[in-house]
């Protein structure tokens, strides 16, 4: 029983990280219908930024996790640059397939650029302790503080983001652009600015995800975002891409599936099950669990 609960907790924690990354995917996909393959690599950018800024934060007498602020800024900057330099020109004249290929190319570019930069280098870097260790135990089940904070932070981020898209002006503009670009121009929405800001927010979230990920696995390497990003994308599709609560739901499901497969079936089969779920969902309900099926316009 205690194994079961422990697995559940690990799953929830993993799922929260996936959910944070999935939120970024969902926001970008919702607004420009593009799978931003480079999103996983933004996590890597965030991770390395924190590696470089943790000493700075410590020198200023702040706790180590405050370096996430720099990471958020850096990730948002990279995200906006990607949108401005690569995605926007191609969106203007290319098809959705060329846009997708560009996204793959940007992902390749970021990963390999990081490897080529001497300060970052191809070898993994071990991060220092970000959160203080320790925790509490209830009925034989230990809960670490990092686990609690991961789950809480991602839940809070999701709620705030949801409220943001529902209540604020910019959030409404985002939903408007995702529904109908031409109409939003007519309503006086600056579409390009909205898209750039969406990229900034989505990429900023990946820095938070990087923080949570590093609290769990304190190792940073250039391809760290690859599998994490792909699985988070699966989570976004599972919950219904473009829908914020869907990303959370999908993330938690993927996290639970992964942790339960790892502890009850086999750790090497975990990825297979994750992708199997994706395939089943895509076949049965391509719009995702919370999504609505929309007919094709002729």
């Amino acid at each position, binding site marked *: 029983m205690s194994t079961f609960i422990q697995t559940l907790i690990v799953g929830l924690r993993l799922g929260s990280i996936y959910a944070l990354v999935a939120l970024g995917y969902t926001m970008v996909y919702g607004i420009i*219908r*593009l*799978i931003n393959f480079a999103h996983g690599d933004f996590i890597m950018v965030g991770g390395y930024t924190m590696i470089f800024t943790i000493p700075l934060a410590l020198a200023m007498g702040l706790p180590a996790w405050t370096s996430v602020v720099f990471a958020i800024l850096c990730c948002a900057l990279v995200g906006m640059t990607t949108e401005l330099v*690569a995605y926007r*020109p*191609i969106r203007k*004249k*290319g*098809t*959705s*397939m*060329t846009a*997708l*290929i*560009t996204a*793959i*190319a*940007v992902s*390749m*570019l970021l*990963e*390999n*650029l990081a*490897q*080529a*930069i*001497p300060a970052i280098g191809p070898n993994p870097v071990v991060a220092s302790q970000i959160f203080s260790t320790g925790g509490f135990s209830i009925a034989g089940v230990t809960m670490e503080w990092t686990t609690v904070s991961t789950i809480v932070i991602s839940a809070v981020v999701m709620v705030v983001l949801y409220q943001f898209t529902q209540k604020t002006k910019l959030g409404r503009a985002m939903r408007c652009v995702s529904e109908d670009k031409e109409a939003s121009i007519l309503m006086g929405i600056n579409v390009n600015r909205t898209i750039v800001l969406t990229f900034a927010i989505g990429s900023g979230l990946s820095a938070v995800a990087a923080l949570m990920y590093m609290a769990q696995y304190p190792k940073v390497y250039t391809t760290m975002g*690859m599998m994490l990003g*792909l699985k988070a*994308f*699966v989570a976004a*599709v599972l919950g219904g891409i473009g829908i914020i609560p869907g990303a959370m739901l999908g993330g938690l499901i993927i996290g639970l599936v992964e942790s339960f497969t790892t502890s009850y079936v*086999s750790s*090497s*089969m975990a*990825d*297979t099950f994750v*992708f*199997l779920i*994706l*395939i089943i969902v*895509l*076949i049965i309900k*391509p719009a995702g669990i919370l999504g609505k099926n929309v007919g*094709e316009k*002729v």
Partner: protein
Amino acid sequence: MKKRTGKGYIINTAVIAVIIVAFAFIKSAFGGNEQFRLIIVPSLWQCCYLIILAASLNLILGFLGQLSLGHCGFMAIGAYAAALISLAFQRAGVFTEKAGPAFVLVLIGCILAAGILAALVGLLVGIPALRLKGDYLAIITLGFGMIIVNIINNIPFAGQEGLSLGSASASLYKNGLGFGTASKVTYLWVALIVTLICLTMMFMFIRSKYGRAIKAIRDDEIAASASGINTSYYKIFTFTFSAFFAGIAGALYACANATLSTSSFAFTNGGILNSTFIVVMVVLGGMGSLTGSVVSAIVMFFVNYQIKNGLWVKSLPGFLGGIFAYPMLVYAIILIAVIMFRPRGIFGTYEFSLLNFVRDIKEHRAKKALQKAGNKEAKSND
């Protein structure tokens, strides 16, 4: 038109025959040459499977207009199938050394079996996957590719503990398809002829009713289905057909490499062989041009080889050299540039044809001349 097609077949066959004779001559003349045996022949093997791989993905990406990100999965099936079947035959005592007619038969049988098995899996994957399109198809094929590789990894007699490590790998090299230098030279003709046959089949496919149908689907699916084209049938057929060739490429890969490891067939990795890189090759060459895929596979192989082994790369200073140490970085930049300025790839939809080559050049010259004349006229009017 009919007559012209016949003429085309005759010309192509004649040219191929001449090339084969010339090649046989080159081989007999340089067979003992160290450089030929150690560098050129292995490179040719690698080019062969890369060409088949790129061309087969182009059927889906360029002609059907759907993005498949799991192409290496089919290749992995082909590679492992060929390797395991060859080992089984060896253990059954059909052949004892890598020579003789029995081995050649097994070799050809393995290549065919690899293709057929990959095609079967392609069919199984294609039926559910091709109900989706666009981004979703890309993701579902990516998922299938991952699952295939993951399952192979977990098969006890094939995966991580099987062919890639330990004794089984050594036995693949010693007894199965894994060719050493000498066998690579001896059986080079198999690789070249298999590549030639595959390319011919793909060219004929594109020119057939099927090719026209899938191009129609690419251009407008709804219009195509309104014109009576059974879109699901053609899509699944193309997918299966493409998987067949990916399987054959996998078999050639198993021959050219002494060891197999599933990490070579991943979605992306540092090397030249992964699903992403095949997409890069196809897009650079031209989505909708088999010629482009062939040229791009050869050029990319050459560039990669130069980056890996060329002396000029090592002499580059500091950061520049660092960039070239990660060739995917260079390809990524080239890819983004090509998509921005030539969205359909370098060759676009141009197909090289011996029959039409002279005519194409003449037309091109005429066009240029016309343009020049036009420019002059415009200038004189000023």
